């Protein structure tokens, strides 16, 4: 449109026309992005600014001294709540054996170093870069990736803490990581099949896959409660088949970490098929042919060609599940029970639940935001084109 406007104008010197076009472009850019930026400013940055102030005692919920004596909030600038949250430190267990106690900042530094290694590993060394990346990934996942088995989560290592909220945070990271990794593992074959296996009407298939999104999320969670209850569909079937005594239903199916992970998987798998599908669609088929021609097995072609090219989609899929899951509130509130209580619920309780301590709630929120922001920003580098391929 800008072009047409300048063409219709009377002849003017080239420099002036260029200037006018630039101004017009710039105006259009501002005009189009201002609403989004304003929204971001008003509903993201400003609230976060105040939440940060709450977390260090510069704001408090109580507006009077008398109210403050009820809420027990900090009267002014102080890092006390942050210290209370982080001071208990972190305990590491490997294969169920206590292996050490560390201050929280040490864990933070190690965590940041591992993320760094995973993201830019290949740039550090042409020879060992791949190994640095793989090693960092494994170490990052080790304490958090689990296999849900009944009431327990089978795991290699575990991070825990004497501090209630910090321990709850690690539990939420574990549940979010487990959900995200398993979601990717489940979604990948479907996306692969859609991208490579179906020739005709693949977008209709895609629509079928994401059809559950047409109903409300709450409704779907309630449906799970009906299926998974002690006298629910699943247990009733077991009773009918004589596999289980009605007095002894499979009870970990509802109100457990397992349930939360299951429902999160169910909720997110259809959603993350999309980014993986798109990444796989972008794989140039000729590369695969070339790989086969040069003697690569199908597995080798997958590992050396398909996966590196699809990596940004896979990482995006992981983050799509991980980020909302780590702060999840409604799913654990409905199906998590005591065993599946999550960090997001603790935050909600501080703001609008019985705990009523906006300052503590703010500390927890900002901590969560910081971790998620760090992950999102550091991996955004990885998400750029070809991020997965060795440099």
């Amino acid at each position: 449109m800008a072009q047409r406007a300048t063409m219709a104008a009377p002849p003017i010197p080239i420099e002036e026309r260029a200037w006018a076009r630039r101004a017009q472009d710039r105006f259009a850019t501002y005009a189009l992005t201002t609403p989004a930026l304003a929204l971001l400013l008003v509903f993201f940055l400003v609230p976060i600014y105040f939440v940060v102030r709450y977390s260090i005692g510069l704001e408090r919920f109580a507006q009077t001294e008398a109210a403050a004596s009820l809420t027990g909030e900090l009267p002014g600038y102080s890092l006390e709540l942050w210290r209370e949250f982080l001071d208990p430190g972190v305990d590491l267990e490997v294969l169920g054996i206590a292996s050490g106690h560390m201050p929280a900042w040490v864990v933070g530094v190690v965590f940041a170093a591992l993320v760094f290694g995973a993201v830019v590993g290949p740039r550090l060394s042409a020879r060992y870069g791949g190994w640095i990346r793989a090693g960092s990934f494994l170490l990052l996942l080790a304490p958090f990736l689990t296999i849900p088995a009944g009431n327990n989560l089978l795991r290699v290592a575990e991070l825990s803490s004497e501090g209630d909220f910090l321990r709850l945070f690690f539990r939420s990271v574990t549940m979010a990581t487990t959900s995200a990794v398993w979601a990717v593992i489940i979604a990948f074959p479907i996306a692969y099949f859609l991208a490579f296996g179906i020739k005709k009407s693949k977008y209709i298939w895609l629509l079928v896959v994401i059809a559950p999104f047409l109903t409300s999320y709450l409704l779907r969670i309630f449906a799970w409660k009906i299926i998974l209850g002690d006298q629910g569909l699943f247990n009733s079937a077991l009773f009918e088949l004589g596999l289980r005594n009605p007095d002894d239903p499979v009870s970990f199916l509802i109100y457990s970490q397992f349930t939360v992970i299951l429902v999160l998987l169910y909720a997110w798998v259809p959603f993350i098929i999309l980014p993986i599908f798109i990444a796989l669609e972008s794989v140039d088929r000729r590369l695969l042919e070339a790989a086969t021609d040069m003697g690569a097995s199908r597995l080798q072609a997958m590992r050396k060609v398909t996966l590196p090219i699809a990596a940004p989609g896979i990482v995006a899929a992981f983050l799509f599940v991980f980020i909302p899951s780590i702060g999840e509130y409604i799913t654990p509130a409905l199906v998590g029970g005591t065993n599946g209580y999550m960090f997001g619920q603790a935050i909600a309780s501080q703001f609008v639940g019985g705990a009523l301590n906006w300052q503590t709630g703010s500390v927890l929120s900002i901590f969560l935001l910081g971790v998620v922001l760090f992950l999102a920003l550091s991996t955004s580098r990885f998400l750029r084109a070809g991020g997965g391929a060795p440099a």
Partner: protein
Amino acid sequence: MDLEHSRLTRRGFVALTGATSLSALLAACGGDDGGDGGAAAPETGASTDEAPATVSFDPASEPDGPITFFEWAGYDKTSPWMWEGYTKGEYGQRSPLKFDFLENDIQALAKVASGYSPDVIHPCIAYWPDFHAAGLVQPFDTALLPDYEGIPEAIREPGVGEDGLVYHVPFDIGFSAFVYRADKIPIAPEEESWNILLDSAYEGKLATFSDPITIIKIGALINAGEPIDPNKLTSDQIEAAKETMIQAKPQIRNFWDNNQGNIDDFINGNLWGTYMWPDGYLQAIRHEKLKGVDVRYMWPKEGRLAWVCGFVLHAATEQPGRSTLAVAAANTPNAAASLTDVFAYGAAQQEGVLELIKDKELISIFSLDDPSAFEPPRAWFEQPLPNRQEYAEAGEAVKAA
């Protein structure tokens, strides 16, 4: 707890989110604020030194316009019996009632403190001092509440301020205790106790309310093993209660947020026993699925817990008189009887109510005709807690443990 000489400051987020009503609230605090601005409100007798002040509203001189109740869902237009006395009266058309819904006391407090300004709010009695301390409420003119005296003194008294004025008018009351299936939890009625929470035979089969304060009260009653006032716990008792409730966690399948979800879990067999309000018990005993099952509402030897909720008047309302008349309508014996018939809750109003209750069975089920049922040591009604934060932190720690 000096709630009288409170200073109001307007800052930060509250200011940002438009604390439109706050300036008018100062009067209710009667505080020594530094000229933050303040509109005149009725003489609230905010000073403790002076003789008890009175409050007087004149509904006739108030402007027309809707009166907004910040209410629990259910106590709205869908329950016309509650408001009839007002809606059919002189101001029913000129100042019609509007309803917004709150989910819990804290959320209501948070919203009102950050600028939302309804005319009347319906918090439970333990929370009115928070509203008051934040300068958000003003006292009622009891002359406009003809049935106020019909509320037993033990129930209405905690709603009276240190200045002798009425800030909270109780409306609904109810027990909170375990409802359990005697076929699964075989205990004799005289053995009933909160300590079933510690019995590993019921692992993963019990549930209780997610409110952190309730969690600590239950822990304290278990520890005492006899009736003690759970509203007056010391720091040591709170700490011990926390430890007990952490021990009880294997038995606690869920800390429920949602009343109906909890009732459904009990009816559907996910729970053998759970902390319930009277409506839950009634649903359970009358439900198809539990026909033939001996479902009991526990009367623990330590005493039941009990709640009282009711109305507070926003400090900035332009229609305090008409709002009070609407509150008065909800406090009539007729409305009180319907409250029991419809929701199975007890009514704070008890004068001549029993005869008006249609479902007479409810009277015996909930011991409505037995005054001792509503008094210590058989029931512990909630009260404002000066050390609530300690309770809350300990209760949160139980959930997070």
